[in-house]
């Protein structure tokens, strides 16, 4: 399944079995329990199955059946478009989030009338929230004559309308409003400049959305970021002009379940039902391969291979979740000591032991382990998400612990992060005051301006990158990546010598050679192992016979830091000169002036190559804006 289908079809949910529809039908003939309702709601549903399930739920609520632990929620819906279709999807989706939802619908396209109390449609109801759905066509600006490129009148009319609707609804019904950002249009007027020209639809939508985001930040109303959902889905899929013309359906029917899911995430978060713990498997989930079989140097994690990068990017996403407050736990079928070893000693692991609150690697059943994790954290199983590449483990946990959410996941780890994000299991409706200040638009503009000004000065720019270079002798951990860099690097390569793994390996722990590997981290993330310098001792000199650097970190002055380091080491070893050699090829023009730039003296031309010399005892350390770590 492509990731786009994964999102549209909500691929994280289990797909219904063949006789799902029949099963559902048999339930509609009798009363059913909350557990049974939730069983159905946890599957991905289509227009017919969610209608059927919604009917069962509506009747159960009407009969006042005992549906605990589902909690009751009264949602009013006010819309400028036809939203009746979406209501059954809302009701059945809410059950997945532990909510028995009753929806009260205002008449079609009577948004302001409802807000001003003209139609009494919600009188006497105790509402928990009001979903206000307004799309671009629902704004009262369609007939205003628009002068492109000038004036704020149209924008003012639109935003005032939305704010009035929101304020009146809230004070009249005493319930928080859920306001959506407006999905962008695909109908450009001028082209790329639309966003810059005031009063084009793109420009208006952008301004309205920005205003809504800022305006709702301080209130207890909730933001439904439909614009970003539509972006994820793709605007050309989101908009369906046939159905809009036929029945004023505001978006494609394909996205109805996804829309309902996003609304219900907010309702769940509002009732404190968002999940808080992510339990992860290890082998083929956090790294490629099996640590018990492949060993610490055999697992795929980190830079140097696409597969290693894929797992790395998933770890980076998991780490971000941890940083925003999600509790991490491990459940893996492994020997504990072996399972922990990558966290402790693999340099490319982004996740470290201290990020993991509970680490359970053993040979017990995973459901048992998750129960123990829940006990240890003192949290209910309904705050748990379990992420495992193995379908059998997922099935087992899903069956034994139905309250734990177990997303189905794509087979390609490159999509793990976006899949976990798409499932939206950790929705939050509040965040801290500090965060609010940070997203303040004034501060944002100022920061952007600062960045622009400062990037004029290269030195300042480099300083702001917060670079850390980590130096170590070439070792077994880095060997594979070193050899790979040697074979792949063409531009920043002084000699273009292609040493084999055996050649590099034979130089390790050998006094005649000095081989340095460099990792670089900066504010954009960890670049991994990016540079290698290898020297051979000849009398009291070191001759550099290999100096390479990955093109992703060119222009960071890392080579100045490297020569500082080489000279420092040379001093310790009593070396008097460092000899550099530049062998030109068709592709290494970039480093033609390398040794001169670093302060080497030209010695001679040697069969097309140039030879350079640096006196270790008369060396002045370069001042380089990065932090150095020795490892």
């Amino acid at each position, binding site marked *: 399944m492509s990731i786009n289908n994964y999102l549209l079809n909500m691929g994280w949910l289990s797909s219904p079995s063949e006789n799902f529809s029949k099963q559902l039908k048999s339930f509609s003939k009798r009363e059913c329990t909350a557990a049974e309702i939730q069983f159905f709601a946890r599957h991905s549903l289509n227009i017919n199955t969610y*209608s*059927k399930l919604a*009917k069962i739920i509506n009747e159960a609520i009407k009969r006042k059946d005992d549906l605990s632990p589902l909690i009751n929620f009264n949602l009013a819906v006010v819309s400028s478009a036809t939203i009746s279709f979406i209501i059954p999807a809302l009701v059945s989706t809410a059950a997945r989030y532990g909510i028995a939802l009753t929806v009260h619908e205002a008449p079609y396209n009577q948004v302001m009338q409802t807000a001003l109390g003209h139609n009494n449609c919600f009188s006497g109801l105790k509402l928990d929230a009001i979903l206000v759905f307004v799309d671009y066509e629902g704004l009262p600006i369609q007939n205003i004559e628009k002068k492109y490129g000038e004036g704020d009148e149209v924008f003012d009319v639109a935003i005032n309308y939305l704010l009035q609707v929101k304020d009146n609804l809230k004070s009249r019904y005493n319930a928080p409003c859920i306001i959506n950002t407006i999905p962008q249009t695909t109908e450009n007027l001028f082209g790329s400049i639309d966003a810059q020209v005031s009063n084009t639809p793109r420009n208006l939508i952008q301004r309205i959305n920005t205003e809504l985001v800022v305006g709702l930040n301080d209130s207890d109303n909730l933001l439904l970021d439909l614009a970003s959902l539509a972006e994820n889905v793709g605007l050309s899929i989101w908009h369906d002009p046939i159905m809009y013309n036929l029945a004023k359906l505001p978006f494609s029917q394909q996205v109805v379940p996804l829309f309902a899911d996003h609304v219900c995430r907010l309702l769940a978060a509002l009732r404190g039902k968002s999940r808080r713990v992510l339990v992860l498997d290890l082998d083929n989930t956090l790294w490629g391969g099996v640590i018990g079989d492949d060993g610490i140097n055999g697992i795929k994690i980190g830079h140097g291979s696409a597969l290693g990068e894929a797992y790395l990017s998933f770890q980076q996403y998991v780490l971000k979740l941890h940083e925003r407050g999600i509790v991490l736990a491990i459940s893996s079928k492994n020997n504990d000591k072996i399972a922990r070893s990558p966290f402790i000693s693999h340099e490319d692991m982004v996740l470290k032991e201290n990020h993991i609150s509970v680490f359970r690697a053993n040979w017990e059943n995973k459901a048992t382990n998750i129960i123990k994790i829940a006990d240890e954290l003192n949290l209910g199983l309904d705050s748990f998400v379990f992420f495992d590449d193995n379908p059998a483990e997922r099935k087992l946990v899903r069956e034994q612990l139905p309250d734990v959410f177990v997303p189905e996941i794509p087979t390609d780890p490159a999509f793990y992060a976006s899949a976990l994000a798409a499932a939206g299991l950790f929705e939050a409706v509040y965040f801290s005051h500090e965060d609010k200040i940070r997203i303040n638009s004034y501060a944002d503009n100022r920061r952007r301006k600062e960045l622009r000004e400062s990037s004029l000065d290269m030195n300042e720019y480099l300083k702001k990158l917060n670079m850390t270079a980590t130096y170590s002798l070439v070792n077994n951990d880095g060997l594979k990546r070193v050899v790979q860099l040697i074979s792949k690097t063409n531009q920043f390569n002084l000699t273009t010598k292609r040493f084999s793994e055996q050649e590099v390996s034979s130089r390790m722990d050998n006094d005649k050679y000095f081989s340095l590997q460099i990792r670089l981290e900066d504010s954009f993330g960890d670049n991994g192992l990016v540079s290698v310098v290898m020297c051979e001792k000849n009398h009291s000199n070191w001759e550099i016979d290999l100096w390479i650097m990955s093109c992703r970190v060119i222009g960071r002055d890392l080579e100045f830091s490297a020569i500082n380091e080489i000279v420092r080491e040379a001093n310790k070893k009593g070396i008097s000169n460092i000899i550099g050699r530049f062998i030109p090829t068709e592709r290494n023009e970039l480093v033609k002036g390398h040794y001169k730039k670093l302060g080497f003296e030209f010695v001679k031309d040697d069969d097309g190559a140039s030879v350079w010399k640096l006196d270790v005892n008369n060396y002045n350390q370069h001042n380089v804006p990065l932090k150095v770590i020795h490892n």
Partner: protein
Amino acid sequence: MDNNEIMRKVTTIFQEVFDDDEMSISPEMTASDVDSWDSLTHIRLIISHELAFNIRFDTTEISELENVNDFIVLLKQKIS
């Protein structure tokens, strides 16, 4: 897909949409013959068939439908 197969599939979809296991359809049947066939059900019918047969009806096609027979004829055209 032969005629019978199409009819069976269409009948099942009608039964699901109208939530009536006993429902049978005939060529001359129109929306006014079925009580619960309102504009919303109509859309659900169209969308359910689009999903089940993996097709899209265009604006003209939808506008020209008069009865079940028109619908079946159109459907056959689309999937052939």
